[in-house]
C-alpha cells in the first residue's frame, strides 16, 4: 500500500478512509464479497477518483465510508471518528454536519426551491447558513438568478450545480460524489467537474468521486482502481491516456 495512515489526533492528513474493510452480502454459498479487505485513505484538500468495473465495489466503498451503509468487518472513519461505533442518529448527524453528497440523479427535493435545496442540511440541523459562504458558493456555481426555481424548472446541469452548491455550503470534512456527471451531456458535465475542481483549489475541499468516465476521473488529484472488492492500482496526477492505459492493463471493462 502506498498510503500511510497518520497516527490518531496528530495533524490529520486524512479526511476519511477505511481499514481492512469487508462488506459481505448474503451467507454461505450465496455470499458475495463486495469489499474484500480494502484499506484506503482520502487526503484532505484533495480530490480522489475511484474507478473500477461494475461490481468492483466502488459504490459500496463510498457508501460505507460515507456512513450510508455498514461494514461487515474492518473500520471506516471520517476525521477521527470511527463509524462502526455510531448509532443511526449519530450517523445521521455526522452526515448532516460533516459530509456532503452529490448523486448521479435525483439530487434535489422536488418540493423545495433551489436555494432551499442548497440550505437543506443546515435547515435540517436548525442552523442558519453562513451568509458570506452561501453567497460565495451560489456565485461559484452561477445559480444566483435561479434560486427561487423548483427542480422541475431547472435543466439537468443546473440541478447538479445546485447539488454541488448544497454539498459545499456546509464546509463538510468530505464530499462524496457518485457519478455526478453520469446523467449530463459532456458540456454540462465539464462545468460540474470544473466547479468541483474550484472547490478543491479555492476552498481546500476534500472530494471523493466514484466514476467510470476517464474524462471525469482525470480532474482528480489521484485515481484509485478497484476490482473484485480490492484496491488493485492507483495513479497520481492522472490524464485520460494514462487512465485508459491503466484500465487496459487491469483488463477491466466498464
Amino acid at each position, binding site marked *: 500500500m502506498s498510503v500511510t495512515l497518520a497516527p490518531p489526533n496528530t495533524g490529520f492528513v486524512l479526511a476519511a478512509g477505511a481499514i481492512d474493510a469487508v462488506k459481505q452480502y448474503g451467507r454461505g454459498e450465496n455470499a458475495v464479497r463486495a469489499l474484500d479487505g480494502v484499506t484506503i485513505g482520502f487526503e484532505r484538500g484533495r480530490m480522489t477518483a475511484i474507478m473500477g468495473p461494475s461490481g468492483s465495489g466502488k459504490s459500496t466503498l463510498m457508501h460505507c465510508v460515507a456512513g450510508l451503509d455498514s461494514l461487515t468487518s474492518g473500520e471506516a472513519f471520517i476525521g477521527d471518528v470511527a463509524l462502526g461505533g455510531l448509532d443511526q*442518529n449519530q450517523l445521521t448527524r455526522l452526515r448532516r454536519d460533516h459530509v456532503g*453528497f452529490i448523486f448521479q440523479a*435525483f439530487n434535489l427535493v422536488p418540493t423545495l426551491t433551489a436555494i432551499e435545496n442548497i440550505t437543506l*442540511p443546515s435547515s435540517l440541523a436548525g442552523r442558519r447558513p453562513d451568509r458570506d459562504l452561501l453567497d460565495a458558493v451560489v456565485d461559484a456555481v452561477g445559480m444566483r438568478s435561479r434560486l427561487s426555481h423548483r427542480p422541475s424548472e431547472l435543466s439537468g446541469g443546473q440541478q447538479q450545480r445546485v447539488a454541488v452548491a448544497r454539498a459545499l455550503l456546509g464546509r463538510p470534512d468530505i464530499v462524496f460524489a457518485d457519478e455526478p456527471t453520469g446523467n449530463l451531456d459532456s458540456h454540462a458535465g465539464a462545468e460540474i467537474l470544473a466547479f468541483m475542481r474550484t472547490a478543491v483549489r479555492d476552498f481546500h475541499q476534500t472530494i471523493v468521486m466514484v466514476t467510470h468516465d476517464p474524462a471525469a476521473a482525470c480532474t482528480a488529484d489521484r485515481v484509485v482502481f478497484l476490482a473484485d472488492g480490492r484496491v488493485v492500482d492507483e495513479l497520481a496526477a492522472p490524464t485520460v491516456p494514462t487512465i485508459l492505459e491503466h484500465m487496459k492493463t487491469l483488463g477491466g471493462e466498464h
Partner: protein
Amino acid sequence: MFRLTIRTILSHKRRLISTVVSIVLGVAFLAGTLVFTDSLRRSFDDLFSSVYSKTDAVVRSSEEISIGQGITQRGRIDESLVDLVAAVPGVTAASGSAAGYARILDHDGNPLGVDRGMPNFGMDISDNPLSVWDLRSGRLPSGSAEMAMDAGTFSQGDFVIGDQVSVVSQQGARTFELVGVVGFGDADSPVGSRVALFDLATAEEFVGQPGYVDSIQARGDGSMSQSELAARIAAVMPRGTETLTGVAMADDSSNQVKTALSFFNTLLLVFAVVALFVGSFIIYNTFSIIVAQRRKENALLRALGASERQIEASMLGEAVVMGTLGSLLGFGAGFGMAVLLRNLLSAVGIDLPQSGLVLQPRTVVLSFVIGLGVTLVAALLPARRGAHVPPIAAMRDVAVEQPSFSSRRLAAGLGLLVAAVAAVAVGLTGQLLVLALGVALVFVSMFVLGPLLARPVARFLGAPIARARGLSGSLARENAMRNPKRTARTAAALMVGVALVAAIAVFASSIKSSIRSVFDEQFTGDYVVSTQTFGFGGLPVALAPQLGEIPGVAAATGIQIGLARVDGKDQGVTVIDPATAAQVFDLGAKFGRVEDLDSTGILVSTARAEDDGLALGDELQLQFLDGGTHTVRVVGIYDRDELAGPYTIAKSLYAQSGGDQYDFSVYLTLRPGADTDAVEQALDAAVVDYPYARLESRTEYIESQAAQIDMFVNLVYGLLALAVIIAVLGIANALSLSVLERTRELGLLRAVGATRRQVRAMIRWESVITAVLGAVQGIVVGVALGWAVVRALRSQGFTEFSVPTLTLVAAVLIAIVCGVVAAARPARRAARLDILQAVASE
C-alpha cells in the same frame, strides 16, 4: 392479461388489505343490519304466533287514534261483551283482558324498566287456556292484594316469591304480594317491557277502567276455521268493535313491535350507506394513485401491443377481486355485527327473544351486489384514465406535476353544487330521498372542487405548522400542496364524516337553544315534577292538586297529552287545568282567556286558526277513544304553540274520553317570598311514591329538557365514528402509497442528514394538514347543511340557529388526532426506509 391482474394484486398485498377494509366495514354494516332485522322479524313473528297460538279470534275496539311516530292508542270495550262472545256457537272459551300503564319499583324504590323505551304496563292474568302468559313458578294472583310479574322483571329486580312489591299506576302507589312469575311465550318478557299482573278485576280498577276491557280472546271448538269463527263473532258485536282472527292478531302485534323498532333499523341502514359512500371515496382515491404510479408500466404494456380496453379490463379485474373479497369478508363480519347489535339493544334494556340468526337470500345478494358495485363504480374512472395512456409515455420520464387549476373542473364542480343546493332545497320541503340525494351531491361537488381548494387551503393551514416545526413542517406543507388532487381526494372521506357530525351538532345545538328560549318565554313557574313517560303513563292526575296545597305553592298545574280526532283528523292535544295553567304558562293569548276554558271549549293556536279559518266561537267536532263525540267551541286563540301545539282542551273534557288519565309533568309557581327550602322539602316528600318523577327547579328542568337531545346525538356520533375510522384508513392508505412513490426523495433527505424523527414528523404533519383540510371542508359543508335544515324547520319551533363552537373545535382536534394516527404506519415505514436503495443510481 388476467394473469397479470392476479400477479399485480398479489405483489401488493398490503395495499390490497387496506383498500379492502374500507369495503368490508360498509358491507358489514349493511349485512349486519339486514341479518339483525330479519332475525328480529322472525323472532317476533315466532313469539307472537306462539303467544296467540291458542287464540282463534280477538275482539277489540275499532277506535284507534294514531298520530304517527308509533304513538297510537286504541279504545276499550265494555266488559259485558265477553259473555256475548262466549255465547257464540262454536266458541269454547272467551276472556277479556285489561291493561294500562304501571310501573314496578325495586326494593330500593327505584323504577324498573326504561323511560322512553318499551312500555311498562300492568295487565290481567287468569287461569284460562287463552292466556298469553305461561306460569313459570308460584301461582296466579287473586284478589286486590296479589300480583305476578314477568320473569325479566323478576330477575332484574332480584325479587323472591312472597316479596311485598310497590307498583305505581294512575291510581297512585300500592303494595302487592308477589305470588307468581310468568314468561311471555318462550321470552322472559315482552321485548323488555316490565309487566305487573293482577286478576282481571284488580287490573281493571288499578291500571284500566272498571267495567271495560282492552280486548276479548276467544277459542273455537275446532269445527270451523279462524275466519269463520271471527265472522260469526263479528256478527253479534256492536258498532265500534272489530274482530280479528288469532293469526291476524299475532301479525298485528308483531308488526307493532317491528314498527317501533324500525326507526333503529332505518338509522342503521343510513349509516351503512354513509360508510359505503365514504368507502367509495377511498377506493376511488386508491385506484387513482395506483393508476398514476403504474402509468409507465401501462405505457409499456401499450407499447407492447395491449389495447386500452385490455388495460382497463385488467385494472377493473383488480377492482372485482378487491370488491368480491371485501364483500365476502364484510358479509362474514355482518353476522358478528348482528350479534353485537342485539347485545347493544339488550344493554339499553330492550330484551329481544333469543333465536338463531336469519339469513335471507336478499342479504347475500345485496351484500355482494352493493359491495362489488360500489368498488367497480369507484374504480371505473381511474381505470379508464389509466388505460388512456400513450405508449410513448413508457420512454419518457413523465412529469408528475399536475396542473393546479382547471376551469373545466371549476365549472363542473360549481354546476354540481348548484344542482346539489337545489336538491337540498327541494328535499327540505319534506322529500327525504331528494334531500339525501342532494346531500350526496353536495359531497360529490366538494369532491370535484376539492383539488382547486386543496392547494390554497393547505398552504394556509400549513403555515403555522411550517413556522412551528421548521423544515419538517414546511416540507409537510409542500407535500400536501404538491398534488392537490390526491390531497383533496384523501381528505374527502374525512370531510363526509365531519360534515355529518357538524350538521347534526348544529341541528342539536339549535334545538337546544330553541327549547331553552321557548321554555324561558312560556314557562313562568319555579319548579317541575317531571317524568320521561311522554305519552304513555306518568303521574296520577290527583297529584297536582295535592301539590298545590303545599304552603308556599301558588299554583300547581298538571299537563296531559291527550289523543283526539279533531274534525276527523287524529291529533295530539294538550290537556290542561284552566284554573291553574295560566299562572304557570304564558301561551301568548291573542283572543280569549285560558281561564274561560271548560269542558265545552277548546283553545286553538294562531297558526292552526289561520290555516283552518277558525275564529272565536266557531265549533269543532272532537272524538275520543271511546267513540264519543263532543262539540266544542273555540274560546281562545294563542300565539305560542311550541309547547302547547295546535289544540288545548280542559281536563274536565278529557276525563270523559275513556283514555287513561295521567299528567306527564306537574308545573309549579311559588308564592312571592315563599321559603324555597321548606317548599322543596315538602315537594320531595309529596312525590316520594313516584320515583320515576324528578323534582327540578326551573333552570334544572329547562337544562334537562335541552339535554334530552344529547342521547340521540351521542348515538349518531357513535355511528359516525365508523365513517371516521374508514376515513383514517383512507388517509393511511394514501400516505403509504405516497411514501412508496417518494422513496428516492425520502432517501435523499435521509442521506443529507434528516433524522428518522424528522422524516416521521414530515409525514405526520402532512397527514395532519390533509385531515384538517377534510375537517374544515366538512365543517363548512356541515354548518351550511345544518343551517338549511334549521331554517326549513323554523315553523316547527326551531326559533334559534346556534353553532356549537366547542363541538366544532373538538371535531378539528379529533381530525388532528386522526391525522397523527393515520400517519403512524406510513411515517414509520418512511423513517425505516433503506437509504441505499433510495439513492443508489439505478
